[in-house]
């Protein structure tokens, strides 16, 4: 269980060195690296020129312009920043609005927490963008947002500019609450079967279609010059579903089994929308043709299995097999730690199913960018794209690769050497805060002694001051 530390809050609030103040030099030059472009091969001893946060030029014969900030990447590997198509970092509090079965009115964008340390940790794993999703408690969940991991920036600067918003759907065991019992006194919630899950989605879209019609009628009549019209009552639950039908919002559907995946494809056809990505989609390999034909992407785990019944047929060949059958596939994390090793997870598709190195790398770069509709901006190293890059000391598909720097919009947001260099300073600052707290406590105690409060006879818990602080903080 993660514990809340008091001092880290102080440190972060004080703009401690951890919160990197990313400089903004207009021109950055990364030189002498192996550049894995993903779209047009690898460039040995390659250089990347970055201007105004965009990739301005790349090649083996570039020279650093005068005044450019030079990053020497000799012997290192540059890849497009990793894009995590399924993440729950940077969310303040719970990820599930779990009371209603249709929680489309809830929006993750409203609860982004820029101080979540997992943003920094994932950045240190080469992740530059992430699809921040609502949880899977409901057949139709909350609205989702794509962010860039701009650590140190306020919440308002996290969303990926221009990226289409999404909505989370969920099929199977989670929305039917299979794997946990409600606390006493709380009634079970509909739906309780996969049959009911379909019904909830169809019912919601039936209402949304009606709602859309009301607005279309209203707008039509208004445009025709009709006077004294009363607009339909706004419905924040149905509006996002209308946007789905209008192609203005992506559906990211949590799913496992083939039956439920095919169900959603049918429902989507009925209401004239497309599922943008099937998330998890652990049985996707069984119906890859159908998923490809529906124009949906598959965003899956590398090798997770057996954690619940619907994950028992999961196989580590899933990503490769779906790719082979023409599905655009990404490998995602769903977990702040897994996100830090997505390069390794991608490499597993070379072992299981024999993807090429480049196709494996696509699973965590270009393909998730396509799935999120941001491939015009990120996902590969091409002139004109955002300079969102991860620099490793080894081949990034090796277990031995460690991220050295991560850049977003051409700015260095993570620098391993800088992080290591700052540790002693942080430790000193932390100790100073602890000492200060200890002193304050002692003063308080002696004051209380003077007042001779009888209950103060009780010995303080025999523990070190850090744990004491936590214990008190928890009180």
């Amino acid at each position: 269980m993660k514990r809340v530390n008091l001092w880290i809050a102080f440190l972060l609030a004080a703009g401690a060195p951890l919160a990197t103040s990313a400089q903004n030099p207009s021109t950055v030059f990364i030189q002498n690296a192996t550049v894995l472009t993903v779209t047009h091969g690898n460039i040995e001893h390659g250089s990347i020129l970055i201007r105004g946060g965009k990739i301005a030029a790349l090649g083996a014969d570039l020279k650093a312009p005068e005044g450019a900030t030079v990053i020497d990447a000799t012997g290192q590997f540059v890849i497009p920043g990793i894009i995590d198509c399924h993440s729950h970092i940077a969310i303040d509090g719970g990820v599930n609005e779990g009371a209603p079965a249709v929680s489309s009115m809830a929006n993750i964008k409203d609860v982004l927490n820029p101080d979540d340390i997992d943003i920094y940790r994932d950045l240190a794993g080469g992740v530059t963008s992430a699809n921040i999703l609502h949880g899977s408690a409901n057949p139709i969940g909350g609205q989702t947002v794509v962010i860039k991991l701009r650590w140190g920036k306020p919440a308002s600067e996290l969303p990926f500019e221009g990226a289409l918003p999404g909505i989370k759907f969920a099929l199977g065991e989670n929305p039917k609450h299979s794997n946990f019992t409600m606390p006493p006194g709380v009634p079970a919630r509909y739906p309780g079967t996969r049959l009911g899950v379909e019904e909830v989605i169809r019912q919601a879209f039936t209402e949304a279609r009606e709602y859309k019609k009301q607005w279309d009628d209203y707008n039509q009549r208004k445009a025709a010059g009709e006077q004294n019209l009363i607009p339909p009552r706004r419905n924040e639950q149905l509006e996002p579903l209308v946007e789905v039908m209008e192609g203005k919002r992506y559906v990211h559907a949590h799913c496992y089994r083939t039956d439920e995946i095919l169900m959603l494809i049918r429902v989507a056809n009925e209401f004239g929308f497309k599922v943008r990505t099937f998330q998890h989609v652990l049985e996707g390999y069984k119906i890859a043709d159908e998923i490809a034909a529906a124009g949906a992407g598959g965003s899956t785990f590398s090798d997770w299995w057996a954690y619940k019944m619907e994950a028992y047929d999961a196989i580590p060949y899933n990503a490769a097999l779906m790719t082979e059958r023409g599905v655009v596939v990404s490998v995602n994390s769903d977990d702040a730690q897994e996100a830090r090793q997505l390069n390794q997870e991608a490499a597993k598709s070379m072992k299981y199913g024999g993807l090429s190195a480049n196709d494996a790398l696509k699973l965590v770069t270009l393909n998730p960018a396509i799935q999120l509709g941001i491939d015009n901006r990120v996902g590969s190293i091409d002139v004109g794209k955002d300079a969102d890059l991860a620099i490793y000391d080894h081949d990034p598909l090796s277990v031995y690769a460690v991220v050295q720097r991560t850049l977003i919009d051409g700015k260095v947001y993570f620098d391993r050497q800088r992080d290591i260099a700052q540790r002693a300073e942080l430790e000193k600052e932390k100790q100073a805060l602890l000492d200060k707290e200890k002193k304050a406590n002692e003063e308080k105690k002696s004051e209380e002694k003077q007042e001779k409060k009888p209950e103060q006879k009780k010995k303080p818990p025999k523990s070190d001051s850090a744990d004491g602080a936590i214990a008190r903080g928890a009180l």
Partner: protein
Amino acid sequence: MKIRACFLPLALLFAAFAATPMWAQSAATPAAYAIKGGKVFTLTGTPIENGVVIIRDEKIAAVGAGVAIPSDAQVIDATGLEVYPGLFDPITQIGLTEVSAVSATQDISELGDFNPELVAATAVNPASAHIPVTRANGITEVIAAPGTAGFDSQAGGIIAGQASAFHLAGWTMDEMQIRRSVAMVINWPSIQTRTFDFSTFSIKEKPYSDVKKEYDKAVNQLSDWLDRARHYAQAKEKGSPALYERDLKLEALVPVVEGKLPVLVIADEERDIRNAVEFCSKQNLKMILGGGADAWKVKDLLKEKKIPVVLGPTERLPEQEDTPYDKPMTQPSELFGAGIPFAFSSFGAAFSRRLPQYAGTSVAYGLPHDEALKAVTLNAAQIFGLSDQLGTIEPGKLGNVIVTNGDPLEIQTQVRYLFIEGRLTSTDNRHRELYEQYRKRPQAAR
């Protein structure tokens, strides 16, 4: 491709193995195997180029560069390949769980806080799909530890039962068993003011004083159990059977208080580790630390008390927000530097196959490669007193050997041959079967 071609006859043989559900091919089993031509990493010295490993009667019979190949041996051509001891995952729930969320398939955690008489081996399901899935990644033996983690991770009790070591191949647990009892699992009572309550899916907070009281009570109970076990041992030794009543729980604790059976104490936080070490030292227990997320904070103590550590996954988030982001990955290198023996472990079932990945990642963050290799083979065997049988490629040890197409810690490496107890064992498994099955699905009609 070239390498593959010269293996064709073997590949065919292997395919035959793959078709059988289990590993055994009793009728066709040759008297001996000779793995020749590969680079042999014995883990006892420098690797042997173009080495030969002879396996006979479950055991390694000979290792070396110029070893003669017996006429009755089936030859495994390992030219261009590498030979290692099989990997050992020392804390798992393999065989005790099939599907985490399905409680009917869970035999990890018993009710009650003190269950020293329970033994994991009792309920290891030899037909679990986890066994072939795990061994396909080069893991040849594991220890199943009751009461550790699992989906309902809060359960498990304080004395959770005895951990059992077994091979990842066999028709029955009797055949698979290496040692029925290798350690007594103790979940160290942790002082936690904030706990996650699964019934309400929310964080519950308790005052420190209450939690401390609960903690003291648990530790008192634990020492009470050990005291009673000592008295029981005395009574048993001195008295006639009529003078004492047989008590299965106390009987199970006797080897623990006599220092014959180690205690595997699961603790992660600094305070818990210190408390546990102090307790075991006072009680004269042979302690193995399991988990040890904060082990780096107590290196001196662990070193002084000679306590080995079975580390949880290196790929996890730091314990505290202000802990360096890479601490779980650099910790193994720190422990090695401090001279503390440690092994890597998955602490799971489904992720047991990630064991080499955990070790590989620690190499990326500073641990010497050969030490990482030992930490997934020999070290676990030494920590649990099984190094006379396992952990290296040496004559006399069990024939748990893997033949790979490269560094076993690297993600893309494939296990080409797998020997368990000297038998050539299939790497086929549920996942590959499903893959082959659905790969053959005809193009769906549009």
